[in-house]
Each structure stands twice: as C-alpha cells, then as structure tokens.
C-alpha cells in the first residue's frame, strides 16, 4: 500500500503490524506522535494490545521488562532525556535478555534545552547491550521497525533493539511510504525463559564473581551472532518485499578516493554532496552506517575517510570517528557537525571533503578551532 507518512507515523504503523501485546510509553518531543498514534490504534481496536500510560520513562522500560518476561511482545518509544532517564532499565532489559523493541527519536541533551536532532542520546546507550540501527528515510524507519522485532526475538539473539531516527529531520518529515503485509515475516514470540509458575525459577538473583561474567560473555556472543541474524533477516525482507539494506548504505564507494562516513539523515545529505563533488572531479563516495551495534567492519582500505559525527564524547572525540579509527586502525578527518539540529547542507559536506586534513578534528561552525 503506497501512502505518505512522517517518520513517526511510519514507525507506529510498523508497530501496529507487528502486533505487540503490551506497549508502555511516556510522551516526549519529538517522539510524541509515535505514542499518540499507537494509543489511537489501541483505543480504536485496530491494535488489540494493552497500552500502559506510565508516569515516567524509567517506568516505561520497567513495564516493558515486566511484560516481556511473561513472553509477550513489547514496544516503547522515547527520545533524549527520556532515554537517559530510562538508562538504568535499558541495561536491565539487555541483561535480562528481553527482546524489547524501542524507537528512539534522536534529540540533543540539555542544558540548554534543545529539542532538535543529535545522536548523543543514543551514543550514551552504546554499552548497554542493545542493538542499534540508524535510519535515513521514512521508508527505512518503517522497514527497520518491522525487522527489529524479528531480529530481537530470534532465539540466538534475545536482545533489545533500538531504532534511531533523527528528530524532526525524519520524525516529522513526510515522505512516500510503501507499507507491506508482514504476515508470517514476524513469527510468534517464543521466549525460552518466560515466567512459568508451574516451573518456578529465580530471575535476576544475586550472582557472584564466579558466574556473572558468563552472562556478560553470553550477551557479547549474541551480539556477534546478531551480525548473521541481521544479514539473514534483511535478505529475507528483500526477497519478500523488494527493499535491500545492509550494515552500510554505500553510494559511489567502489572507485572513491575519499569516503564520507555518517549516520542517519546526514547520510542522505552526503550522497548529494558526493554528486556535486563528482561533477567537480573529486572522486568521493558516501558510506552511511546503519548498524552501530553490533559495529560492522567497514571496507575503507586505501581511501581517505571523512567521518561526520552528530554526537560528541567530551574529552575524547566524535564517537563514530573514534570507533572507526580504533576498529579499522586508520586515520580519519573527524568532523563534528549537526549538534542540536545545527543545519548541515550538502554544500557544507562537500566543503568538509575538499578541506579535509587527515588525522585532525574539525568542529563545524566554531571559529578559530582545530
């Protein structure tokens, strides 16, 4: 079915089609439309689920955890401070191996109050054991949400999945949306450790030094396995519904001398920048990283690399740039741009490429720096 939708509405539609049994959520700008739309689906009977209107994000994740451990499908959505408020429980969800799916509408952190796009909120969740995908279009937000349930609930994974979409730039932008009939693409959830009062067990009990690390290792093992599961799920999605994704979306990378790596909507802007650069004779390409956890190996050998971070780790650097540097053992030109919704056009990105200085960091818009 072809329609138009905002990123938020596309996520809500995919959630409806995945048929969660419990949704617990708290509204926060710019995520609000997702939870409002789901509440609407539930109240109209289109989605036969329980919608728990909780008193905080901390409770939203706790309620999802309580519901998920009974073996039912759960969903929540949040953004920015909501995600940070949830942080204790996002760790709990992953540690308890619960396949909760959450949309996070990326937004900057206060102070000063800023409701516009930035990835620092999700970056602060990167060590929790959640899988993280970053999307760049309304269609992708929808497709990734459907796939998230499938991936999270795979019995080799059983880890929560976070779909990240840029605040306003994607959450509130209308684009065409081709909705599918997922049918058996998302099979019924089978949670091997679901609570069963006929077979009582302790959950989350005190765990000593001789056992705790085994549970941690198990999360890492599933993270590694998730590479295969993500690839297989995306393959099947592409066979059934005709749209192909991957760990990265590569644009004119094959013969490129310089590659721009970014995440989210900046990746779309980078593709336009690449077209312009090619017209000017610069052999540029764009690589948009989709999955940040698990973090894939990127094929960047022999090229110069410009990384744009819409996030920052103070006293350290752009998280994406540093991750690529560490994992690929290469020098990059690290650009910090787009914080708090700062406008970054394709012209600006073309400028980053033309003025690149490998091995340095550049804060876009800040004068007298680097």
């Amino acid at each position, binding site marked *: 079915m072809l329609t138009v939708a905002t990123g938020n509405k596309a996520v809500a539609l995919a959630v409806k089609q995945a048929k969660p049994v419990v949704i617990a959520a708290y509204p926060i700008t710019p995520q609000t439309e997702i939870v409002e739309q789901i509440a609407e689906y539930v109240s109209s009977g289109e989605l036969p689920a329980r919608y728990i*209107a909780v008193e905080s994000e901390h409770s939203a994740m706790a309620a*999802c955890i*309580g519901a998920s451990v009974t073996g039912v499908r759960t969903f929540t959505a949040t953004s920015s401070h909501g995600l940070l408020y949830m942080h204790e429980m996002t760790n709990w969800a992953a540690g308890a191996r619960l396949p909760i799916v959450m949309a996070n509408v990326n937004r900057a952190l206060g102070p000063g109050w800023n409701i516009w796009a930035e990835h620092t909120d999700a970056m602060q969740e990167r060590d929790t054991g959640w899988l993280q995908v970053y999307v760049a279009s309304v269609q992708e937000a929808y497709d990734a949400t459907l796939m998230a349930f499938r991936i999270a609930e795979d019995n080799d994974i059983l880890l929560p999945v976070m779909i990240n979409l840029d605040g306003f730039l994607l959450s509130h932008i209308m684009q065409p949306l081709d909705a599918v009939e997922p049918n058996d693409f998302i099979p019924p959830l089978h949670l091997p450790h679901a*609570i069963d009062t006929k077979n*009582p*067990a302790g959950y989350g009990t005190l765990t000593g030094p001789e056992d705790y690390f085994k549970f941690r290792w198990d999360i890492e093992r599933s993270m590694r396995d998730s590479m295969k599961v993500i690839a297989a799920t995306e393959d099947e999605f592409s066979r059934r519904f005709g749209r192909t994704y991957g760990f990265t979306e590569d644009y004119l990378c094959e013969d490129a001398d310089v590659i721009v790596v970014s995440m989210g909507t900046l990746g779309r802007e980078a593709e336009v920048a690449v077209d312009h650069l090619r017209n000017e004779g610069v052999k540029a390409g764009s690589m948009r990283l989709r999955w940040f956890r698990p973090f894939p190996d990127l094929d960047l050998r022999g090229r110069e690399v410009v990384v744009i971070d819409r996030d920052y780790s103070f006293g350290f650097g752009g998280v994406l740039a540093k991750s690529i540097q560490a994992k690929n053992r290469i020098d990059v030109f690290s650009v910090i741009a787009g914080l708090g919704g700062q406008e970054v056009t394709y012209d600006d990105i073309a400028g980053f490429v033309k003025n690149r200085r490998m091995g340095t960091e550049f804060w876009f818009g800040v004068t007298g720096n680097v």
Partner: protein
Amino acid sequence: MPEIPKEEFILKCTSACAGCSASLSLRYVLKAAGPDTVLVVPACCTSVIQGIYPNTAMNVPVYNVAFATAAASASGMSSAFRALGKKTNVIVYAGDGGTLDIGIQALSGAFERGTDFLYICYDNEAYGNTGMQRSGGTPLGAKTTTTPAGKTDVKKDIDAIIAAHEPPYQATACAAYPQDLFKKVQKALSIRGPTFIHVLAPCPPGWRYSTEKSVEIGKLAVKSGIWVLYEREYGNLTITAPSKAAIKKPVPLEDYLAPQGRFKGIDPKTLGILKQRVAKNLQRLAQEEAGVC
C-alpha cells in the same frame, strides 16, 4: 481461624538474619497466595535472602528488579498476564525504602492506573539491606547509621498516601499476627485492581534487640498503638481486633521502645512528640471507623 496450608514456598537455608520477621511475613503471604504467583522484588533484604545463583530459596518465580521499579515492572507483568487470560497473582514484596522513598513514583503511577496487583510493603523502618540507614519509614527518634543521634523527622504516612489513590483494598498487618496477615492477603488477592498491605516487620539487627523477641516486639507495637491494624475496603475502614483493644487501653509506649537499642537515650521532648502522634493517630482512625471525619 483460617486453614493455613502446610505447603512451604520458602525453602530451607535462606540467608535472612535470625529472627527476621520480613521472611516470616513472606512465608504467610505465599501460603495465602498459593503456587500460581509471581513475586516482584526490588532491591531490599528479600532480594538477598533468596540466595545466590544458581540456587534460590523460593518456590515461586521471583522477578528481581531495579530499586525504583517494582510497581512499574509489576504493572507490565500484570497487563501481560491479563492479556494472555491468566489469573496469576502478581505480588510486589518490597521494603520501606523501595516503597516510601525511591519507588513511590512508580507506586503512585501503578495505583492511579488501576493495575491489577497486590503491593506489599514490609516495613523494617530502615534500609536493612545496606546496613540500617534511615528511610522515610524510620520513626522519629530512632537511631540508624545515618541518624546516629536519632531521626529528627517523622515517619512518612504511606498509608494516607495510598488511601488518597482510593484503591479498592488496603490494609496494615504485622509479622507478629501471621493469621491476620494471611487473611488480609487472601482478601486482597480476591479483589481486582490495585491492593496494598503495609506490614510492620520488626528487624533484630536494625532495631537492636535480641533475635528471639521479634514476635513480642511486633505485639508491643500493636498493643501500644504505634502500629494500628486495619483494613480499608472501598473506602470503609475496619480496625482489626488487637488494635481495637489498643485504642481502648494501650500499653505504655515505653514498653515498646525500651527493649530496642535504636530508641536508647531518646530525649523526653522527642518521646513526648512521639506519644502525642500515636494518640492522635489512634483517635483519627477510631473516628474514621465511626464515620466521624
């Protein structure tokens, strides 16, 4: 007298302190609830007394959750069970810290939403699990490790806060009266919606008395009127028998305080305030029962 089942849901070898009345209460709670029950436990003594993975001393599923989230987690769990058409009892068993202090936001939310669950606060009047720091439940004048000179604030009235949410059922109980607790748990579980039982749980190391005295101290709490046993069903208050007697003729508060090291050296002024508050509370509840509000 209710018929109390022989079946045990707490197995031998918990790591509770000797004389722990929180564990004694839990034993009766689970006997009243039966096997189709999930216990939701935030950080508190009960999260420790189950024992260490891979063993557990509990014979019902116990879901351990983060300190602030017991009511919210139970809310999600209860919603899921009801959506699946299951009647499984969802019981939060939380200490006073997880209830009166850090967990109160989630507690209030779950009651406002009409969550179908039973929330039990076992109140040992301090953070027992971390070594007896003061909590919102610590009474005026009691010494804890963070109120070494005695607490200067009064005990938070969580029952009045819960009452303001107008739940269909709420009650108080005391570990020293297990049959009363048993009956109240059964009644709470027979009612749909959020129900609350506040259990006073004397704690030998925290209250600094010798381990064999838990039941005696609990009885003195009720007889002196510092702890009042009652039920409030759909807003109607009924004071439970032992407290009725205490309203007529309470034993001196000193009889309750004297055996406890935590009140040792309490100054006369504080004692006076404590006595006044006890008398006022007894009068308030008696009036509420009589319909004079």
